């Protein structure tokens, strides 16, 4: 059979544990961590600043990742187009190298 003081001790431990959970949960929410029903980084619209409250009570505005998933896909496609343009520029360089008449005329031969 438990004594009175032992019961008080157990209650105190339970209460302090519950308080700690509540405090930790609140801290997580205020630091911008994920919550049920809130947008994740993948679905958050691009270029929308988020505001958080510092421990001192002042607010700070931070810039989220510049590109959304849709924008990143767009940029990947544009990078491919830039690469294709790079290939065309390389091929153009090879063609230009063969376009010097003072070089190619040597293959003509000389008239007697």
């Amino acid at each position, binding site marked *: 059979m438990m004594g009175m003081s032992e019961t008080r001790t157990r209650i105190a431990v339970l209460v302090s544990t519950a308080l700690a959970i509540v405090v930790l949960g609140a801290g997580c929410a205020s630091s911008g961590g994920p919550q049920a029903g809130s947008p994740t980084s993948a679905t958050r619209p691009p*270029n929308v600043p988020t505001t958080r409250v510092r421990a001192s009570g002042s607010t700070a505005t931070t810039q989220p990742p*510049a*590109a959304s998933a849709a*924008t*990143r896909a*767009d*940029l990947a496609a*544009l*990078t491919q*187009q*830039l690469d*294709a*343009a*790079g290939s*065309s*520029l390389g*091929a*153009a*360089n090879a*063609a*230009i190298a*063969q*376009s*010097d*008449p*003072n*070089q*190619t*005329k*040597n*293959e*003509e*031969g*000389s*008239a*007697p």
Partner: protein
Amino acid sequence: MTRPSVRRGARAAVGAMLTPLTIAALVVAPAGALGNARADGCRPFVAAKARVDAAAAHRETTLNLLVSTLDVRRDPWSMNMGQITALRAAASDVAALDAHVQSACYATVAALRSDALPLLTNYRVYWLRVPQSHAIEAADRLGEARAALGRVASRLAALAGSNTATRGDLDAMNRALGAADAQLGTAPTASSVMAALPALSPAADMSADVGAMQGARAALIAARGSLVEARTSGLRVVADLGA
């Protein structure tokens, strides 16, 4: 002109051993070294005719290669088809000239020389057609790159927003595209220096043709430099937006 494949193979073997320079040697060789006269006064000139044949085959191969190079291009400046027609005509004429030399009766080396010389002077395959066709090919490829970079710049403009650095890179890209346009023209209208290219034709005095080709070449080099800059700026914009 279509020829038997057996003859083509023999010509290729001869062509591999001979350079176009040998055609000059052909027409100045001592007559006695070129064959003995027949009863009808025709001399065979076997070695000389083989050299003419090899030189003609070399030119036909080169012209056909140029045709196949331009034939698969997109032709943003509407230059390629005219050039292809000129190249095909030259190949056909070279083949006809060779066929004539191979079958003609020559009593003197002077007569053979007179018939063979146009192979060098009338077609200018290497002095004109090769550099001219490659310049047209280069313009085609730069036109293709310009179009792609223009599409990218338009899309990036929609994504750039108001970020100062991003806008600066995009402005640099558009300036470089404008510099390329100043050299090449704006498709389908080529700049005057580029538009002069397909009109060049073989001439006894090649100085005007060479001057025009050098001018076009300088424009191509400058335009390519601008397009490389535009691409670099475009990559910076993409990096800015993806950061």
